């Protein structure tokens, strides 16, 4: 199981949608699942995902495998401040710079 914390417009995929609370979806995940796999299972269009994706607090690319992570944080495309410009995410191979 992995806890998926959703922010901004992605909160609509959680039961709790108040932005002042935690919008969390708990979902089954295999270690080989990618972030995109998980997002797709929740119903989030890939086009709405921004670059700020965090696996157990580590900046990750959409095709990174979730491995043993227990927490996934997903921010939408209109909330991608900072990380994209500073850092190379885990599993970046399929991500264009």
């Amino acid at each position, binding site marked *: 199981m992995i806890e998926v914390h959703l922010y*901004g417009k992605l909160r609509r995929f959680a039961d709790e949608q108040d*932005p002042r609370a935690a919008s969390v979806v708990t979902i089954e995940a295999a270690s080989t699942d990618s972030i995109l796999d998980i997002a797709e299972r929740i119903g989030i269009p890939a086009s709405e995902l921004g670059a700020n994706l965090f696996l157990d*607090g580590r900046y990750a690319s959409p095709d990174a495998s979730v491995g043993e992570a227990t927490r996934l944080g997903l921010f939408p495309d209109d909330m991608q*401040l900072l990380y994209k410009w500073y850092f*190379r995410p885990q599993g970046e191979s399929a991500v264009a710079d």
Partner: protein
Amino acid sequence: MERILRIDMTDRTATFEEIPERYARRAGRWLTSSIVHDEVPPECHPLSAENKVVFSPGFLTGTAAPTSSRISVGAKSPLTGTIKEANAGTGWGGRLARLGIRAIIVEGQASGDGWWLIKITSDGAGFEPADTWAGQRLSETYASLFDAHGGRQSVDICAIGSAGEHRMAAAGVCFNDREGRPTRYAGRGGLGAVLGSKRLKAIVVDDSGAQGVQLSDPVLFETGRKKLTEALTSHDITKPKGALNCYGTAVLVNIINEAGALPTRNFREGRFEGASKIAGEAIFAGNKERTGGELYNHACSPGCIIGCSNTWHRPDGSEHTSCIEYESDWALGANCGIDDLDAIGELNLLCNEYGLDTIEIGGALAVAMDGGAASFGDAKRAIELLHEIGRGSPLGRILGNGAVVTGRAFGVERVPHVKGQNMPAYEPRAIKGIGMTYAVSTMGADHTSGYTIAPEILGVSGKLDPADPNKAELARNFQYATAFIDSTGHCLFIAFAILDIASGFEGMVDECNGVLGTKWTPEDVGRIGGEIIALERSFNEKAGFTALDDRLPGFMTREPLPPHNTVWDVPDAEIDKVHG
């Protein structure tokens, strides 16, 4: 013709001087740091008559370049003892630029107990007694000064609050925003205390009859302006109703919290359980409930097309404070364990009223809480402590002199600072690149000295993993590019768009060439930034700073930070390679 205005507070004279040839192409941070380097004795006491406060609008300030209304303020810092440049978005600098004033140098020290105001117009500069406004809240001071000087449309105002009058090292220099609110700060490093030491309370600028900024090549300038405008208005972060316009910089609260890098309860943890309650999304939702409509952010200064400045509203819908920036939200919120936006709003308001740097004060409060002066999360006590600072009580003076002085007074080792300046809202144990920036910044721990500038611009190969300690080139090049942008008058937030949209970056360089008549290329951005940093480091070396000062505090090498449970482990040799 552009000139420098030299103000001697000792004998209260104001003299216009020609710009020396060596400064002919310098403005903003480049010019403030050049003048401080050339004229201020590095070993002087920051509150002595030998120190000077230098104001300079950027190359583009006062022109039609988008989001270019920054004013740089420089001096030797009473907080750090280093050179300092802090900048703010306001119409004040544009008025100076249109009057043809490239810089103001405030030197000397007035004797006696009186306070002074300087009024600058197209006829020159004059002194007026300012005792009337001493000790007031800045909202009262600004309202009164606008009334006395022809109203908001006629003038913009720079002033210090009671913290500056008390020469506290956390005192900022306040400017008004576009609506006249006294809320835009050259906040860090205690520059307000340096003005206080000279007994200069305020500078009022009226640019009626000014000739405006002369353009060397208006066609090239216009080409650049259009390219940059197109980039800013099309990019997801900077466009209307984009991330900054919608959520403000406080959008970062949830992002940095999710990354486990949001310093919480005086840098004891990297995640705050109350983050969602204080983040940009919560501000947007709270305002919507209280005002009955979606409230998008506003421009802090004329010509800004990003518009990231927010307001926070009371339950009855009236405006409580502006602006709750990410750093202020964090410093007065998560770092103090406070998850109540109304309390954060009140603390933010009081910092603005008393003329304080929100980051340093949030840091000092958190250190005081760590030392037992209050419990983490005790917002009521935090507000009382802010009033102590405003009154200048003995306890208030300890807090108002920043986190290091507070740590000494309360016997606290855990003081997250570099060179005496409290760290801002990014935990270096979780984001080691920012730790490198803190370590080697010429101004102590400062996020804006290397903020969001991609290494690709300056030809560095590839991005780095956040946990990778090999950050030397990254930190150096971030600082060079930032120093250049700080000299243009542009807000650093243009970086988001110009990093993704090459024509926007070219547009910024075209604008500069269009104003100055230079032939700069994008490669010159790094070269010029490097020159600025070299000047600043030269000042600091003469002031006695060495590589041993480029270090993070020891507790960070020993205390693992949850949730990543990492320590600061970047080798000293790697830090020293940045400018080595």
